[in-house]
């Protein structure tokens, strides 16, 4: 009687088992790695805006405070985007015929808002509040990076839950004095530990990791 299975059948069976183990172990690992890649988190992704707005000019060269345009950052959950009227406030005199600003003029004349594309996005079940972070002494730069050096703004940090928690577990090293909240390129003074300890106390900063801090 001929053999029921060919000579290589055992090798195939062993290889299949190996492949199965690789799939069962490897796929979850691959997925876990993938969600942490910048491709999945959108970190540094190229987000093209309808207007070539240059933060290098406004925030660095002209030294306009972040809160001049993002005016609700200190008082509400969203930082806020300026109304067209705020752009026009300066640009009636400066660069008032520039082609770059054509969408601004169009928005003003038609009454239709400028459709900016969101750069820093969080899922809908996350309730982030700018005002409390500013009140506690977290600077713009901590999450948004060196916006003053960005020709086109991109997401500077991964914005994953693990990244949020790294600060929520130990906020002290990420705090800065109120005077430096909007400062770009701020470096901690020599006595960083003492400053952090003082800010933790004066701003009543606590480690907040309970779920409803962000998920409601």
């Amino acid at each position: 009687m001929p053999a029921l299975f060919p000579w290589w059948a055992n090798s195939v069976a062993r290889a299949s088992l190996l492949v199965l183990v690789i799939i069962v172990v490897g796929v979850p690992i691959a997925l876990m790695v993938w969600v942490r890649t910048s491709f999945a988190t959108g970190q540094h992704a190229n987000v093209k805006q309808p207007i070539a707005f240059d933060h290098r000019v406004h925030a660095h060269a002209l030294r306009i405070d972040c809160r001049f345009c993002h005016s609700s950052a200190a008082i509400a959950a969203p930082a806020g985007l300026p109304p067209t009227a705020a752009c026009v406030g300066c640009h009636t005199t400066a660069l008032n015929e520039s082609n770059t600003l054509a969408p601004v003029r169009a928005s003003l004349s038609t009454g239709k808002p400028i459709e900016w594309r969101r750069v820093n996005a969080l899922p809908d079940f996350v309730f982030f509040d700018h005002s409390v972070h500013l009140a506690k002494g977290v600077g713009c730069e901590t999450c948004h990076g060196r916006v003053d050096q960005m020709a086109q703004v991109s997401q500077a940090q991964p914005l994953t839950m693990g990244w949020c928690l790294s600060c929520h577990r130990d906020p002290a090293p990420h705090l800065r004095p109120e005077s430096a909240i909007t400062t770009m390129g701020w470096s901690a003074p020599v006595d960083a530990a003492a400053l952090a300890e003082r800010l933790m106390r004066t701003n009543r900063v606590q480690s907040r990791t309970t779920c409803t801090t962000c998920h409601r």
Partner: protein
Amino acid sequence: MSDDHDHESPSAMDRREFLRLAGASIALAGLDGCTRLPAENILPYVDNRPELTPGLAQYYATAMCVDGCATGLLAVSHVGRPTKIEGNPDHPASLGASGAIEQASVLQLYDPDRAQAARIGSARTEWSAVAATLAPSALQSRVGASGKGLRLLIEPTSSPLDEALLARVLGAHPDAAVHMYAPFSAERAGNDLVPHYEVGLADVIVSIDSDFLSTGPFNLRYARKFADNRRIAGPSNPMNRLYVIEPGFTSTGVAADHRFAVRPRDIPTIAQALLASVKDPNTRSTPAWVGAIARDLTAHRGRSVVIARDASPAVRAIADDINEAIGALGHTAWYAPTPLIGRSVRISPFTELVDALRSRAVDTLVIVGGNPSYTTPASLGLSSLIRSVPNAGYLGLYENETARDVRWFVPMSHYLESWGDARAYDGTLSIVQPLVNPLYASITPADLYATMSGQSGTAYELLRASWAQSGTGNTPDAWTEALKRGVVAGSAYTPAPARPSASPPRAAAPTGATGTIDVVFAEDPKVHDGAFSNNAWLQELPSTITQLTWGNAALMSPATAHRIGVANGDGVKLSAGERRLEVPTLIVPGHADDAVTIHCGYGRIGAESVARNVGVNAFAFAPALFATDESGVSVAHGGARSTLAIAQTQPMMENSQPVRTATLAEYRASPTTVGIRPERVLSLYPEPAPPVGMHGPNQWAMTIDLATCIGCGACVVACQAENNIPVVGASEVHNARIMHWIRIDRYFGEHEAAVDALLQPMLCQHCEKAPCEYVCPVEATVHSPDGLNEMVYNRCVGTRFCSNNCPYKVRRFNWFDFNKDLSETELMVKNPNVTVRERGVMEKCSFCVQRIRESEIAAARDGREVRGSEIQTACQQSCPTNAIVFGSLSEADSEMVRRRQQPRAYSVLHDLGTRPRVQYLARIRNTNPDISNGV
């Protein structure tokens, strides 16, 4: 919104296909979290909006009218989108509370079934095209210079603006007439004077057939004042006493210390006996309890009152006599001018309109609001009479029954889209302020009247002009102040010096043939007269006593049901003369024998998809205009069996006694046995204090006073609005899948001769040792340092172990994606501060954690800690009786902590060792020792 989930129900599927799909969905479920967030755009405003900061809610004072009587409200707006209604503490009808109807009114604004376009015949048109036919010259060419053939039929209104404009309409058409109709309006009394009661000054209150705590104008105010004298802080405190004499079982009846179920035909006799006993204490009254009530009333002379607001005119006149005899008239009971219009414009009786329609004397009939084709008795035949009018038109929110009968139709604006004014029941004037531009091409009644009187201008301009003329808000400051506060100070009417002079004739008690039944046509506390029946939040709100959702039924006592031979759900046939009605049976312990109650407002057949074919139309059977009951109806088993969507099927408490109760005398004799002190709870473990892990500066907790809960359901709807809770529909309610985070449990307790009902708002108890937390395999429900039992939707995988292990059964599972098929407008009512849950996720009361965190953030911006008493949960905020208080255990001088230190405080199922953060105060009844039976 729809109650069918056929597209998701397990259809005929073979095993292989099921396994294949199951395998695929398991494989895909893991990938769900790996997708990138969808690209989003941000659209800033074009112009500067200094008054509006996205992310910060705005509050505007406005007012909502039911049957013309205003309740002052504060509407919450998120970037121009009203999402929530709260009561206005400065308004006399609200005092900060809001009822279920007010809470649900915001859903009505976004109702996709609202009429969206005008029409003439069946051709779509613009309002301007209709307006052209209504201009004075155009109308005069139709109905003649005197306007003899012109009639207006309006829903009750108290608006001075409407009154001024209607006077001009009558000026342009002198022989025209204005009629007002609503089935349960104050107008039905036919008097210029309406009864008022100072419930807060009365120690003894007798209610005769009047559900004054949950229906009618000022019900929120009465409930607040009633509860204020009932919320005893300790055993030695005084407490008011409420007797209720009624056929059905109402919220007022549950709140009563003694409730007597009396069928309608016997109520005049009882009232007469009470009057006789009050006048002469030596009268031997039958039944004996009448004498006991009379003695109690006279013993509290000047501090007692008889309320018969909703009873028949004859009974109301007897009640006035009693109030006169006990020194209540002019003190705890008085009359004041009606808030409805009629001073500078003549309002003709509705019956005159019916006569004119019958004699074909009407050429043009303009109907404004209401739904008269539905809310009038079918025997009147108003529907066909309106159809016979050559030029009938209707301004309404919906293409309802009345809209079917008219030639032209114009959509009416919702109150949150309208400029206007209105008076509260006591005459206090408020501005109705819009929060949004009309969503559809709709107009207000003022726009219509202005067109008919040849004036131009927007409703806002007309309102400003009317106010300038009336002198009420002449200065810009007065106008701004009235807008901001929501009331015009000192605008209430002064009480009339006397009771109405022309007392209606004392009709002899109606006698029905023996063996026949009395039928009560009751105003529905949820959908009113059908005006709110297209509101899914109200349809799904369980009725206080019956726990019935999505419909009505023939409510009857167990003895009556036994006599007829019917069980729950069986059809009964009512017949009287030519009239017939088939209704499903629902047995209610405590209902008067030989009587049947049917709530009005159901059985709608208009174009409203939620309301259509829900329940049975009681108006179709009503014998005459404004009839609240009818004697001599024969009732027999017959008709189809129906499945009733009842939210709670467990009638009794059994052994666990979740509601503790005592009489005031028992409480005074032995205060400590009424409640259960925490130290009496046995445990094998040492008690850590504070519990492990709970170290936050605030420790959140709630105290609920069962002595004052009247089961009105305001908290249930307020919670639904605040927390984006979906509606599941009748069939899913029947499957016990209702989603409410707070429910009001009802238990019947039987005594010797009467039936008592006990109510208990039940919500997540936020147990310190929460059984749900131990069994969650993915830690989707965990405890916060400030004592909250947190539910994390984005972690939940839907095992439902938590719900199985919850002894209070307060966890709700999303069996379907209830938000998937919502219209664009319905999505706008969602609270942006609360996650909208999807299918497969567990949810439950969060103690309004979004409000807690928001207040904490606001306090952090000010550099301070939040105080517990700064935060109100949605249920607490709406509660008319202040039965619910929320706060922090660490704030020792707060109302919440003081209440739970009373001896009557206890935890439900304390013996399980769950240590709930919600504590209840035992229900105390102030019974009369002279009345042995009766509850």
